[in-house]
């Protein structure tokens, strides 16, 4: 039986109150297993981003429970959450993933610096993941000197490098053309299979959904289907 990485119980999230209240998530019960490669899909406004933000502790729930790696996120303070994200979760966003004034190498190294990983080990891990994402030789470039696809690959390398329990990615391919997007997903899938890294990502793109191993569909904040392929 696979280990549960994320478990939510009756998650509810609404924004605002009264007339203007928006119910972004309703009664979400979700279990993510180690080794999952899950796509969260659904129309625009269905709550995908909201869900991912809650899973990594960037946003709070209105009611319900959420556990990541066996720890309840609701009980953590802001700084505990920051530390938790640093150590257990890798994040990839649609855009603004990299710090523009740091080089590729420094961007990948960043979280390890916050974790006080010794220099030699840092360099070693950066080199390993640069090769994995096929960007060896580009370590001293600045983000602006890379293509969109390359930037997303750096973001994935950064997310992978601190050995998180799970990588959460909100529309990682939305800013890429479909071929580049497909390549990126192929790479994620390889990490999933070879390194048993758990991925949860949201997408609009049917081609990308094709490549997932599990598809969770949200409509109006509710999970309407959850199928393994």
């Amino acid at each position, binding site marked *: 039986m696979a280990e549960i990485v994320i478990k939510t119980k009756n998650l509810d999230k609404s924004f605002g109150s009264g007339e203007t209240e928006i119910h972004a998530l309703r009664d979400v019960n979700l279990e993510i297993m180690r080794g999952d490669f899950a796509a969260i899909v659904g129309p625009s406004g269905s709550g995908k981003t909201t869900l991912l*933000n809650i899973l*990594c502790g*960037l*946003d709070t729930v209105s009611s319900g429970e959420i556990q990541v790696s066996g720890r309840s996120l609701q009980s953590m303070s*802001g*700084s505990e959450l*920051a*530390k*938790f*994200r*640093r*150590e257990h979760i890798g*994040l990839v*966003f649609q855009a*603004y*993933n990299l*710090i*523009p*004034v*740091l080089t590729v190498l*420094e961007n990948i190294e*960043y*979280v390890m*610096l*916050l974790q006080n990983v010794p220099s030699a080990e840092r360099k070693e891990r950066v080199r390993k993941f640069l090769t994995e994402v096929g960007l060896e030789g580009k370590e001293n470039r600045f983000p602006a000197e890379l293509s969109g696809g390359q930037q997303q690959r750096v973001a994935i390398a950064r997310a992978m490098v601190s050995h998180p329990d799970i990588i959460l990615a909100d529309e990682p391919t939305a800013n890429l053309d479909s071929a580049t997007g497909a390549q990126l997903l192929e790479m994620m899938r390889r990490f999933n299979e070879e390194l048993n890294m758990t991925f949860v990502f949201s997408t609009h793109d049917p081609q990308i959904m094709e490549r997932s191993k599990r598809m969770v569909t949200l409509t109006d904040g509710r999970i309407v289907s959850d199928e393994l392929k």
Partner: protein
Amino acid sequence: MLTLRLAFRNLLRHKSRSLLCGLSMMGAYVLFSISLGFSDGSYGGLIRMLTDTHSGHVQIHQKDYLEAPSLFRNFKLTAEIKNQLTAHPEVLAWTPRIFSAALIFRENKSTIARLMAIDPEREAQVTTMREKVQSGVYLTEAVGVTNPILLGLQLQKLIQAKLGDELIFIGQGADGSIANDLFTVVGIVGKSSTDAEARRIYMTLESAQEFLSLGERIHEVTLRLQNYAKARSAAVNLQEILNNEQLDVQPWQVVEEQFYKAMQADQQGNWITQAVIMLIVGLVVLITVLVNVFERRHEYGLLLALGTPPVFIFRSVIVEMTMLSSLSVFVGLFFSFSLNLYFSVEGIAIEPPMEYGGVLFSDIISEVSLFVLFVPAVFTIAVAFVVAFFPAAKSALAVPIEAMRGN
């Protein structure tokens, strides 16, 4: 290290903005330093002028004399007092003085004149008395002349006296008698009729004590110190050492109160200018930091999302601004040093000359000192530091998802 690297790269990121902000900090620092240099330099010059020409650094009188000077408010300069003054490590030289007034006559001309009696040798060690003689000789060189005097230029014009002329003095003796005697002009003092000495007559202490029936009594002892900045503490210390309730020891700030007050009022005006300069620095820094922080809100959102502690972001904003202000001040140091040095040699003439409590002031000069260079430096860096606080806190406390959402 990471903070420093981020701060440094961020500074280089918007070179022209950093340059503009840095230049205004540098300009403000240099202005502040020069304004302080001029204020210190000019007042220092004025104080030196005043104390060198007349007042000395500290004076001793009979206790009521300063409030209402009078012939009768005198004291005896005992051997004990002399020894105490001579032995004091801060006292470079001291000189006794007597002040009075007399009617003076020459043939059919007459006038009233202020008298100042001095010990010529000692006086020359305390003030520039010897250099005030414009023609004739100083009192020490008038050998064989009984009752020699130095006559002020204006008085000389009034009674049309020449060197060697004998004048008749009539005054009041300390014993209540009418004093009168003959005095011989051996020198003329004062460059122009507006000089203080042009309206005075200088005589020796002995002649005055004889003429005024003062015995060994005097009105004032004027002291020259090693360092004029120590006048106040030296006065307090001497008062204790002399341990005489009849005597009153005061620094030049009290003796020349009018001058000192005028100077202080003027210095306060300078502080206002300097505060305005700092206010401008504050505004420029505030705008720069706010623009930077606003532009980078996605980045700060990302850093927070990655688990960066807010303190780290706060620190990096502060470090960035402190780096820029320190750099600006460092470069500015070169300018403020050279400009202050230049103006300390080449004063700026002020037209018309200003007057402070009776002292004319026609040139302003600057001064180079650690105070003048470093106080504005500390101020500039501190202002940048403090002003960066609010935007730094704002970016550190940003909510990551909101910071990242907005385009």
